[in-house]
């Protein structure tokens, strides 16, 4: 989008952007010749529609965080992607889990995940599995 000063037939230059509230996006431009200033106000729906493209409105920043759009637009995603989700499984612990019969594997995984999350453990290793089994009385799993 470009803004043209009709009187001067000159492209206006950007000088400010704001998000003043209610989802409105404001961008201000000035004519380099006569100094006339205008502000473009996008309504919340227009702002959201452009934002849904995953672009930076009113700017030209291309180096966004990974999963920028998912984090900013999907409810609950930011916490999950900030590392507060379920713990990671090492290849060794995954291999051990693969030996559990498939029809109960998901349930067993959930038990280990919950046990680890309650203790703030971010990674499930074979040692963690051993500790959990003893603690939960699940020596057969």
């Amino acid at each position, binding site marked *: 989008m470009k803004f*043209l000063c009709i009187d001067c037939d000159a492209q206006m230059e950007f000088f400010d952007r704001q998000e003043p509230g209610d989802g409105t996006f404001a961008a201000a431009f000035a004519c380099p010749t006569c100094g006339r200033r205008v502000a473009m106000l996008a309504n919340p729906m227009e702002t959201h529609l452009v934002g849904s493209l995953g*672009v*930076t409105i009113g700017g030209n920043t291309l180096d966004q965080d990974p999963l920028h759009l998912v984090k900013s637009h999907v409810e609950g995603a930011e916490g999950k992607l900030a*590392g507060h989700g379920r713990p990671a499984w090492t290849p060794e612990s995954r291999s051990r889990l693969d030996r559990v019969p498939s029809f109960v*594997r998901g349930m067993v995984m959930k038990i280990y995940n919950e046990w680890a999350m309650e203790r703030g453990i971010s990674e499930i290793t074979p040692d963690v599995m051993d500790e959990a089994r003893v603690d939960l009385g699940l020596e057969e799993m």
Partner: protein
Amino acid sequence: MRYRTYHDVPGKDRSQLAHQVAAQRARVTERLGAIDRVVAVMSGKGGVGKSYVASVLATAASEAGKAVGVLDADLNSPTVGRLLNAGPLNMTDVAMLPAVGDRGVRVVSSDLVLDEDAPLRWRGASSEEFVWRGTLEVGMLREFLADVEWGQLDLLVVDLPPGADAAKDLMTLIPSVAHGLVVTIPTEESRRSVARAIQAAQDVNMPLAGIVENMSAYHSPDRGEPGPLFDGDAGAALATEFDLPLLGRLPLRPGRSPADAVGDAPGLVDRVLERLL
């Protein structure tokens, strides 16, 4: 007075939206440079077992020594994460790391970023959501492709949502999709729905590897012999109609995980992988 056109005015566009969108596409292309083949598992009809077939295929390829990833593109009804018992996603400063599921298959699914059993809910203006929902869904898929450190893969299996237009959206993001793999169940209703999806895929020049007929028979845990589950012969009918190979039929065995189902249709996975790799 006649105004000049956008391109007649030579100065730069401050927001550079077109440039930003092009840069997004370039990131997808760059990431896919480390992936040998992208295969879309598709069907026009819901409930035919696309995710199950995709998961069987992925675990079989992994067992065959291939590096495999699965992207669950069914954002509103994700199941692959659970089918493959995928662990959590993890973030680094520059990318998301895929979850690891059964047989070491790398998995990315919206299931892994949503709260337990919660639907996909978008933040922002709640009125007229239909206007921008589709754009956000394609954007989410784009980030699942471009912002994930998939690593070197022999095969990326994309599990598409039902609907004739799903293949079109994917081809917009990944024009280099190697193959579509069509899944149907035996019924006439499925045949009609899947036929539309095949034509939509052909409209965007997606090459199709062939057809898999899922739930072609039912193996009761109580009886020895498998019996039919549905009337119809949609797999063979579609193969004839579109001159595509019917790569095989997969029976329904209750409680069977994808990793354990590889042997349920002897030769099927080999034929599929032979077409894909």
